């Protein structure tokens, strides 16, 4: 596949150079070197060599803010993804944050011979060996040691998710040797490793006999729902936990007391960050809101830009994370703060990590430091299910 093929496949030749994409791109607002329009222009002018070696190719957040408005219906994120796979073939991979540790882990799980020990956090959860419902844990056990210092516990999200499923009468199955879904590898152009992961996961899922896979992470969900079917055969239905909860709200034992994770017992106002993968990628805006509104004693206030207009949390696939990323986060956190909410609720562990990171990074030169509670919706629900402090 070469650049010309990509242009044909993604129909980028329809681009009218109108600039609508760049005008609302959160990266372009802060990073004047980046412009979706100019990237496309370069591609169309046949400057493949230049394009694949441009650092800014990896600055795109693939958040879909641009394509949602594009009058020529150019799928800019998919274009970016495909050009990145060309770039990857030439040794380019953008600046990997955290020294590339997370990518290394993803690649390491692509070995078929490993036997992971990833389920030692299940206390309080009821799971079963064989069930129609599989809970996909994702990278939580690996992220836990990395991000616990900024007060984000992905494992807690997984634990609470399973407890909520239990409350709904579901005892899910877990894959003891589950692999990374491969989302970050796909979106940075390492399609080969992604395919390996997809095959290993699909095989395990097939053997498990699962009919439904529940995700707490929108990236895993999107990957299984949209990307996996292009490479492997999946005979089961991926679903996000918020969709499941929204359909079963009346059966959840919700009480108005909340605690833990930096949330004070008197919390009343929360605001909601639509993750890019759940929102613009998959169109799921209402279910999380229905859930928040169903929790007694909680009031949802919307940020200035919400739903389809939501602003991304500032970093995608751990790549090209920079001071611009922090500027984007500060912009978004300022909006959250302006609502008067005490807690920012999201349904993506990565959003949570990125916002928390902006808070602990004390550099004030990029804007005011903003302190706010940040938590996952699943934690909010789990707290509301507990009967005592």
């Amino acid at each position, binding site marked *: 596949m070469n650049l010309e093929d990509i242009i044909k496949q993604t129909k980028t030749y329809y681009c009218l*150079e109108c600039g609508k994409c760049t*005008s*609302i791109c959160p990266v372009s607002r802060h990073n004047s070197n980046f*412009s979706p329009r100019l990237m496309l222009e370069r591609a169309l002018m046949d400057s493949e060599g230049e394009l694949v070696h441009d650092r800014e190719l990896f600055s795109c957040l693939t958040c879909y803010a641009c394509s949602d408005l594009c*009058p020529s219906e150019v799928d800019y994120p998919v274009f970016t993804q495909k050009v990145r796979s060309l770039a990857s073939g030439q040794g380019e991979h953008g600046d990997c944050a955290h020294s590339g540790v997370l990518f290394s882990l993803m690649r390491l799980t692509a070995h078929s011979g490993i036997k992971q020990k990833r389920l030692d956090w299940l206390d309080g959860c009821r799971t079963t060996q064989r069930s129609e419902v599989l809970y996909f844990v994702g990278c939580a056990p690996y992220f836990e040691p990395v991000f616990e210092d900024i007060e984000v516990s992905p494992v807690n999200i997984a634990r609470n998710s399973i407890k909520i499923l239990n409350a709904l009468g579901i005892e899910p199955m877990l894959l003891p040797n589950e692999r990374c879904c491969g989302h970050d590898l796909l979106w940075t152009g390492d399609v080969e490793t992604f395919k390996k992961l997809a095959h290993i996961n699909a095989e395990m899922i097939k053997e498990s006999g699962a009919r439904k896979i529940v995700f707490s992470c929108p990236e895993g969900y999107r990957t299984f729902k949209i990307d996996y079917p292009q490479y492997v055969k999946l005979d089961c239905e991926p679903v996000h936990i918020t969709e499941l909860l929204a359909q079963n709200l009346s059966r959840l034992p919700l009480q108005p007391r909340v605690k833990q994770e930096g949330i004070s017992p008197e919390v009343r106002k929360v605001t909601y960050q639509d993750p890019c993968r759940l929102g613009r990628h998959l169109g799921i805006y209402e279910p999380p809101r229905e859930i928040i509104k169903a929790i007694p004693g909680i009031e949802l206030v919307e940020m200035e830009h919400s739903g389809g207009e939501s602003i991304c949390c500032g970093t995608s696939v751990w790549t090209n994370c920079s001071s611009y990323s922090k500027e984007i986060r500060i912009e978004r956190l300022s909006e959250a703060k302006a609502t008067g909410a005490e807690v920012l609720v999201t349904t993506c562990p990565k959003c949570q990590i990125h916002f928390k990171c902006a808070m602990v990074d004390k550099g004030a030169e990029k804007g005011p430091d903003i302190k706010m509670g940040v938590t996952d919706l699943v934690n909010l629900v789990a707290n509301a299910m507990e009967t005592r402090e």
Partner: protein
Amino acid sequence: MNKEDGRKSVLVIGGGIAGIQASLDLANMGFKVYLVEKSPSIGGRMAQLDKTFPTNDCAMCILAPKMIEANSHPNIELLTYSEVEEISGGIGKFRVRVKKKASFVDRSKCTGCGLCQEKCPWKVDSEFELGLGKRGVIYIPFAQAIPRVATIDKEHCVYLLKGKCRACEKVCSAKAIDFEQKDEHIELRVGAIIVASGLGLYDITSLTEYGYRKIKNVITAIEFERLTAASGPTMGELRRPSDGRTPENIAFVQCVGSRDFRNKAYCSSVCCMHATKEAMLAFEHHPGTKSTIFYMDMRAVGKRFQEYVARAKKEYDVTYVRGRPGRIEVDPENDNPIIWYEETISGRVMSFEAELVVLAQAMIPQITKEFADILGIELNEDGFVKVPDKLAQPLDTTKPGIFACGYVHSPRDIPDSVTQASGAAGRAAEEIASLGSRGGE
């Protein structure tokens, strides 16, 4: 049913400038013309405009004489407030059933004095004023309406709905009010039909990025026309909706709903020019007004159009910015809209605060699939009348004997619509005049 030979008559559907022109041309050639118009008055979209480009002539000053001529021409029969219900037959022998809607006013008696509309206690949004002004339930649509008679809108008339009021009847000195009036159905025999139903407005509320109907000071171009027109709801004073102040800094946003695969993929053709005109008008109304036009491409292709744009830049301080805005927000302190755009020449993402934003709303052909089926003609994928042979017979529809002109045919401005109207009249005349000589009906 008229007993006249169908081959000497033509039906023109649509009383806008194109329909009027076609009617006049045919009437002058000796044909009998039935000009059917859905609304109470002929005039169409042009009557709503203040000035026309590229001359900045007063629209009504050009239109009204034609309207009057159409009304008084012995060969033209105006059937306003009427709709075509059914058509059968073919070229040379169409049978058309027209519904003359009940206006509850006896037109032979109504003098058009206008007292009834003044005294009507119930006011509703005026369609002519695009909701910016009100009209009575009994009304004359605009000052220069032809025919100048009142019409009662039965959907809102309190007497017809609830049995109360009849205020208009009390004040009408000509005793023209007739609440017993019924819809009338007539049958016409015509040799040819010209479709000139004109230009519609695409509903851009779903393009939420522009904030139309959410942000008070974001209006459409045609609403702007009504605000600057001397006969409009503000008597020609350009006042912005939120506080009635005269805006001194106006932004025009082009291609709203047009050139957009998610809405209308085609170019509406006239917006680049009308935005330029509107910017000039704003300056004339209030010298020193700064206008900025956000465009993608300047379509100034007609005769002297490019010079018009150059004049706007030089003499009226209009700035043209190449960049299609991605979002319009608002400053809650002063209700000023804020436009986010990329200035594509330099590549910088900027925000622009204006006092008023005028959106160049996409324009659509005013014809439904249902009506096209009644006519027996096809529409293309954008809803315009389908023209099977664009090069040899560009005004013919897919049904012999039916021709189209004006915006319903394809996006075009007033001079081109008038040209096409004469063309369609010529085609219609040619076809039916030659019927006898071709030896068959």
